[in-house]
Structure formats: C-alpha cells, structure tokens
C-alpha cells in the first residue's frame, strides 16, 4: 500500500518573456516509513518537486496523493526542513519550537512538554529561553528539527538540511535525523547534492535529469546499508562501489564541457 503517490507531475515556470519547463512526467510511489533521496544536477527541479509535495506549489499537471489526500488539504501532516535553520531570531528556542503547535491551535501543557522533552532528547537541554543567535549552527539545525517534529507530521521533506553545516556536524546530524525518523517511523524525502548522504540515509534514491526534470533512474539501496547508521554506511566496504555507480550516472547527465 503506497503512502505517497505522484502521478504524471509536470511543472512550468512562467515569466513575461518565456516559460520554462521544470518537471516532466514524474510518477512514483512511496511506502509508509520509507526514506527517499532525490539527487541530480543543479536545475533538475529537485526543490520544485519538494515544494509540490508540500503543497506550497500547485503543479501544472498531475496529481499528488498523500494518504489519499492532496497535500494542501493536509494541515501539519507535512514537515519541511530548509537549507538553513530559519529559526526566528526574535523568538526564543522554546517559542520557535512551539510555533507550529501555536498556529495550529494545538498548544497546551502536554504538547509543549512533549516538544521540550524532544529538545532534550536530541541534546538541547536548557536552551529553551535562549535566542537562536546564541547557539551554534548545528544546535540551531537541531532546534529546527524539533520545530518540525513538534507538530508530529507524517511526511518529512528535507531540502538539503545539512548543506550549510561543517562536515563533522553534518555527519552527526545525519545520524540524529536518521535515528529520529526511524524511531518515529516517519516517511521522508531528502533533496541533496551529496551522493554519500543519499546512500547512507535512504532506502531508495531517485536520480533526476535536468531541464526538464525527469526521473532517469531509481537505485535500491542494499538491505545491509539500510539497517546501519549513516556514519557506519559511509565506512562500509562496499559503500564506494555504489557511490561510483551513482557518480557515473550523474556524470553522464552533466552537460558536456
């Protein structure tokens, strides 16, 4: 039974002088609890696809069904994480984390306590009253994860959430996000530039071609990788083999110099 079903998605961007095709004939389905990565050359419409899945953009063609409903009919069923934390600088960490609940009218003592407990679980104890700029980049992205998780979404959309972090922090956060999503059995779609990140975190990898974006190939990540934490996958002996296969495919899509 598929949890998310995309059928014949096509999208165009319009400007006064021209229109640009961004996505063409994208169809796929995702099972509940699955982790999918989207990779491809820049301009392949990965982020556009993510915005369509979130319901922020209406596609020109095609339909999306998440649990049988179109995305914009689902309030707070979809969590979105961006390249940077985008915590509101004038709100404390606590106010930032509880923002989704507040907007949804679900903020009460119990939901607030759950969110603060989650913050502590991911290693952010005692920072509730601090402002975002008092925290390091990694801590802020963690707080952003807590903000996304606070509304208990069924689907998480991750738009290169580790790309602005230093390498060490990025590896640690990959493990954290991976563990969190597995233990709460969340479905996730990750957009990334990093082939290693895609291999180490996902169950399947969708490779997109550029202008217009099409799904060229779907890689199944071997079972032995899926049960390992991202950091351990990166050091696995057959990791580089899969890395090179995907690397070659990606190379062939880049425009010839």
């Amino acid at each position, binding site marked *: 039974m598929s949890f998310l079903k995309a059928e014949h998605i096509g999208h165009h961007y319009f400007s006064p002088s021209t229109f640009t095709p961004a996505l063409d004939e994208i169809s796929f389905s995702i099972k509940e609890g699955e982790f999918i990565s989207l990779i491809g050359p820049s301009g392949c419409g990965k982020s556009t696809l993510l915005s369509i899945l*979130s319901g*922020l953009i209406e596609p020109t063609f095609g339909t999306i069904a998440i649990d049988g409903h179109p995305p914009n009919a689902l*309030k*707070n069923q*979809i*969590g*979105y994480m*961006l390249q*940077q934390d*985008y915590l*509101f*600088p*004038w709100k404390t960490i606590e106010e930032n984390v509880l*923002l*989704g609940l507040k*907007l*949804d009218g679900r903020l009460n003592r119990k939901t607030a306590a759950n969110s603060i407990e989650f913050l502590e679980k991911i290693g952010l104890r005692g920072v509730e009253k601090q*402002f*975002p*700029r008092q925290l390091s980049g990694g801590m802020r992205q963690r707080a952003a994860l807590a*903000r996304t998780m606070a*509304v208990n979404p069924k689907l998480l959309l991750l738009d290169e959430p580790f790309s602005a972090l230093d390498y060490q922090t990025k590896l640690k956060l990959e493990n954290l996000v991976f563990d969190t999503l597995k233990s709460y059995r969340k479905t996730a779609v990750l957009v990334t530039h990093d082939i290693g990140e895609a291999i180490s975190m996902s169950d399947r990898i969708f490779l997109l071609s550029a202008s217009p974006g099409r799904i060229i190939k779907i890689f199944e990540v071997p079972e032995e990788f899926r049960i390992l934490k991202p950091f351990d996958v990166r050091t696995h002996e057959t990791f580089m083999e899969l890395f090179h296969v995907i690397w070659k495919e990606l190379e062939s899509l880049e425009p010839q110099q």
Partner: protein
Amino acid sequence: MSHNNDPGHLYETYKKSLAAEKRWIFFYQLAILVTFFSAWEVSSRNSWIDPLIFSSPSKVWLLFLEKISDGTLAAHLGVTVFETVLGFVIGTVLGTILAALLWWSPFLSNILDPYLVVLNAMPKVALGPILIVGLGPGFTSIIAMGAVISVIITTLVVYSSFKGVDDNYVKVLQTFGAKKQHVFREAILPASFPTIISTLKVNVGLSWVGVIVGEFLVSAKGLGYMIIYGFQVFNFTLVMLALLLIILCAAIMYQAVEWLETKLIKDNLD
C-alpha cells in the same frame, strides 16, 4: 614574569584607558557647549554681534525665568509637545498600516506606486494653507501637518522592509498551515521592527518641522507661534528661547525612541 605581563593587570589597564577616553570625549563635548555659550554672551555684551538680533544667553535665561513664573511658557511648550508627539505617532502608525495594506495586496501596491512617488516628492509643508482651511485654524490642522510630513516616507520605507523579509521565513510558516495574517504577525512585522524604529527616529525630526511650520501659519499658540511673534515684534530673545527649547525637546524625544528600541528589539540583548 613581571606583573606587566599579567593578563588581569593588562585587562585593568585596558579598562582604565577606555574610561579615560570616555572622560576626554565628555570633556570636549562639555567644552564645546561652554565655549559656545560664553562666546555668545561675551560677543553680545561687547557688541561684536548685534545684541538686538542675536540676544544673549543671560537675557534668554532671564526671559525663561519670567515666562516660567507667569505660566505662559508651560502652556506654549505643552501645546507644541502634545501636537508633535501626536503627529509623530499618527504619521508612523498610519504609514505602517498603509505599508501593511500594500504588502497585503501587490495589485493595490502596483496601482498606487506612481501616486506614492509623486506624493513623496511633493514638499508636504506646501499643504499647510489647505489643511488650515480644511480642518480649521486649530491644533487639528497642526497635528495633521506633523503627521502628513512623515506618513508617505514611512509607508515607502516600511513597505520595502516588509518586502525584503526572507521568503524562507514565510515558507516555514506556510508549511505549518499559517494564513496571511499569521505570516504578517509572526514574520513580516517583527522582522521589520528595526526598520520601523529607525523611521521613528527620522519622523521625530520631521514632525517637529511639520508642527513648527503649522504653528507659524496658525499663529495662535506654541513654540512656533513664539518664534513668529518674537520675529514680528523684533524680540529675538523670545525667538532664541523658543529655538533652544525646541532643540531640547527634540533631543529628549529622540532619546525616548532609543529607549523604546532597546525594549522592542529583544534579540539585540545579550
């Protein structure tokens, strides 16, 4: 190791040098003030400048005491400060509301764009006579002057700040199902507080211009009236007194806005 290399000692020296510099700055600031007033007094007494036109600090001071005791100064000062504060608050609030409307509807903003440009370019004090005829020669039209002079520039500056807010903050709110009013309240408005405060600082000065010109025209009450009356009867001591009081009040209002800034912009505090 000699105690000169001790970090604690070096830190003390550093703090002392900072304090010393602060004292010197204050000393020169005070020196300029004292020199200015004494030079004014001395050159007026020795008739190096025309004492009839330029008066002197001692004469201004005596007039100040006289006007305080007969209660007329408090009345004039009260009227002007009231008009300025109200004009400045109305101008800023109205400008911010207009900016919010423009942000809410890009269609409206496109329609109004050329009108805003023209209104901004127009010298607002030229509206004075029309306001007085329309609203009557009282404090209403003077407050209107104080507001009109700052409302358009506030609208333009605050609107461009609203538009400049990072779209990703809006995106975060939209993924939580936020409606347009939530986006405005949670992201657009608080992100623009620093800009609104800096327009407040500009508007303090502008509203004084509007109100003083308004009082010139209406010529009934206030510090502006004191200036125009003193000018007509050639009592320049009165003009100087009004001028000094305006400078003092404007400075106090500016300080009040700076105090508001520290209260409103929380994330600037450590």
